[in-house]
């Protein structure tokens, strides 16, 4: 295990001045790729977790892999911390800048390098938007399966760094299941090829290890993704329920019937209400819970599966079951789901989108307890989530300009995450730990496990320069957090601010 002195610090400081850093970086980057004036840095101050903002020392926007490598070499030599940024849609603050470091954006590496339709793979740069891959592959009847709701904006590099999922992941897997190979540069500038164009690679499975590593182990500069044949047909069933518990049972019954839907999503009344106001997807407004259940495949498979799904949903007590009659209807039903976050954002200026994942059988229990906590914290929470995977997205709504609300929202979020751990789940299913859930890592893991993570970090980044203070907490942080932390439910005066 890593020795204690190897543990990365959360407060790393560069060994060189900002002026010197700018001088060194300007010798490896074109002028337009290096920003260091306050007004140019401002647009990079946060990612999708807008409640936290910081200004980096400089922003580097390299145009190619060689420049990425050169920036890292400069930073490594000058012991300058580095935070990577894709499209900045992350919801856990992974791309939040570090005030004593470089923010390295990959947005200029945005080419699809190659699509090989017969081998069904595409080679892309990290700044390519997720949706652009499927758009480009569609002429070959192929697509890239993982489809985060942010897919029109988020980058494939960010997807790899977060191991992102999407509504189709129940059937088609997460990012880790849909990539073959990455080109990866570690902080010392070493370029590695991890994975291969075959299904596996020699040595340990480092592709799994770097996927989801949140920019703590190195930067992804090229990705070879797997492409799948586009299904001939897809159809979605909408089912309304007058009780969340019944909807949760319906989810279990679908899986129990041996069906693996292409997507199985749930929204509660608050979420459907927000969506209807925002885009009018045609969701039933009086339903306590609405399920979207998709089938895709050949004509025959879809026809079979839709009829089996409908049976299960009716038996489970759905008050309404509606099947999309054509592609336009199907897309409209999904458009509502995919715009749920911005729709909620319309109602309340700010929200925390949590990401805990639980065993499916705990769905109704956990949703009930989340609702009860609304009164405890005096805040509203809408739920829209990947029910088939048990991956919740409670949206805790608040107004960040009110410090007290922000504080209560943070505590509400923390309480939800701890509840997920308590019922045998995890604090994050797909959005990553980032800065947002760093304290809850201390709840999910023991010191001995954190030590393993630190030992792995040390292998890749011994000076702890990459994304300091994110994803894996220091033992010191956990000790402090543990000392002041009282477990939810045992807390006597939850409304009293602590410290």
């Amino acid at each position: 295990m890593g020795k204690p002195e190897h543990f990365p610090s959360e407060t790393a400081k560069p060994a060189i001045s900002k002026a010197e850093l700018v001088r060194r970086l300007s010798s490896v980057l074109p002028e337009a790729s290096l920003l260091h004036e306050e007004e140019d840095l401002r647009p990079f101050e946060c990612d999708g977790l807008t409640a936290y903002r910081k200004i980096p020392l400089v922003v580097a926007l390299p145009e190619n892999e060689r420049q990425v490598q050169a920036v890292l070499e400069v930073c490594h030599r000058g012991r300058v911390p580095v935070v990577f940024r894709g499209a900045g849609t992350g919801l856990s603050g992974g791309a939040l800048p570090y005030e004593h470091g470089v923010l390295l954006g990959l947005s200029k590496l945005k080419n699809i390098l190659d699509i090989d339709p017969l081998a069904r793979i595409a080679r892309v740069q990290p700044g390519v938007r997720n949706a652009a891959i499927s758009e480009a592959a569609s002429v070959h009847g192929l697509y890239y399966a993982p489809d985060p709701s942010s897919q029109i904006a988020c980058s494939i590099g960010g997807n790899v760094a977060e191991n992102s999922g999407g509504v189709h992941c129940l059937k088609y897997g997460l990012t880790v299941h849909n990539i073959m190979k990455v080109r990866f540069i570690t902080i010392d500038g070493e370029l590695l090829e991890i994975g291969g164009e075959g299904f596996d690679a020699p040595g340990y499975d480092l592709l799994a290890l770097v996927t989801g590593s949140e920019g703590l182990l190195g930067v992804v500069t090229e990705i070879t993704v797997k492409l799948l044949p586009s299904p001939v047909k897809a159809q979605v069933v909408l089912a309304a329920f007058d009780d969340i518990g019944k909807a949760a049972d319906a989810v279990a019954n679908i899986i129990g019937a041996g069906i693996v839907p292409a997507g199985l999503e749930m929204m509660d009344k608050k979420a459907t209400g927000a969506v209807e106001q925002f885009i009018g997807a045609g969701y039933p407004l009086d339903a306590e819970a609405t399920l979207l259940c998709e089938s895709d495949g050949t004509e025959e498979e879809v026809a079979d599966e839709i009829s089996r799904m409908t049976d299960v949903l009716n038996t489970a007590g759905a008050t309404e079951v509606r099947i999309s009659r054509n592609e336009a209807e199907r897309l409209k039903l999904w458009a509502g789901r995919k715009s749920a976050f911005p729709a909620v954002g319309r109602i309340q200026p700010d929200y925390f989108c949590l990401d805990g994942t639980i065993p499916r059988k705990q769905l109704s229990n956990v949703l009930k307890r989340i609702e009860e906590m609304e009164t405890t914290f005096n805040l509203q929470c809408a739920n829209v989530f990947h029910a088939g995977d048990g991956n919740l997205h409670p949206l805790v709504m608040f107004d960040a300009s009110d410090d007290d609300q922000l504080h209560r929202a943070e505590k509400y979020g923390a309480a939800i995450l701890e509840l997920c751990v308590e019922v045998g789940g995890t604090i994050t299913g797909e959005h990553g730990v980032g800065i947002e859930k760093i304290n809850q890592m201390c709840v999910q893991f023991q010191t001995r496990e954190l030590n393993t993570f630190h030992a792995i970090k040390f292998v890749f980044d011994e000076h702890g320069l990459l994304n300091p203070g994110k994803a894996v907490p220091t033992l010191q942080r956990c000790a402090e957090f543990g000392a002041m932390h009282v477990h939810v439910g045992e807390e006597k005066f939850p409304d009293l601010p602590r410290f």
Partner: protein
Amino acid sequence: MSDVIQQFQETIRSAATRRAPLRIRGSGSKDFYGLHLDGDILDTRAYSGIVEYEATELVFTARAGTPLREVQEALAENGQTLPFEPPHFGPDATFGGCIAAGFSGPRRAYQGSARDFVLGVRMLNSSGEDLRFGGQVMKNVAGYDVSRLMAGSFGTLGLVLEISVKVLPGPEVEQTLQFGMDESAAIEAMNRWAGQPLPLSATCYVDKSLYVRLSGAASAVSAAQKKLGGDAIEGDAFWYSVREQTHPFFADAKSLWRLSLKSTSAPLALGPTLSEWNGSLRWITGAGELERMYASAVSANGHATLFRSGDDVAAIQQLDIGMLTLNKKLKQALDPEGIFGPRRLHALF
């Protein structure tokens, strides 16, 4: 069972103090694989049994020493399967060995690998500490993915105690089709069909025949069968023989090479070949020369593994210098005393 874990912990701690190698082993069905088998045997079969299984969760958790057969029987009772169709390579293969080896069977190209289906592990490290990574849920990105790292590590990074995997319902029906053709045509056909929405679940080319398995809803399988043609073959015996390497192709092979390549790579002409996974997996028999195998695999965008060999060999896989350094450092970080299966996977770690 906690006494068994205690026993394991003592064994590991004592080995660590003495820096004496330990050889983690289930039934030994994969003993053929690797370079060196050093050290005292730590038999995982003492730690056996299903920990948790609820079919509607699609999650299955069992102890490492549980016979793989038992795992598959329990799943079959609920119409579910291990989707990666693991080879056993022996009647008493264990679940832990199956994951530690990380081997996947014919379905791999369509459903995913052993590693893909791992959700979480409980393991002992070289200090005997009891660790848990991942979990029993479908999605989990908290911390680095140590659980999937364990798949294919052959017990060289720690003792895996329990594993949770995602399981899936088995297909309603299966149908195998046979087509006579040459290797190039077969490679082309496998890839072309894989790019179409067909319910494929296995492909294999051997002895001038291409075998294709269709799995899924009866309606979809029969529609695909009509479209593809070929001769229908009864039963699953062919796929069993490919998966377990009991097919005559594998008989008396002095050395067996496994090449994992870009699927569309042209025939390699390195010796008798059996191809699976749309052509991305090629088994080659004959005493192929090491350097030549490595070089051919690299030029086909992949890598070669000496999977079985009659002789003592210097290496079973080739790593470039950057990856070698990283692998070595990782092994040292997770097993600083170097007790877990040293030099089984590579002469330098």
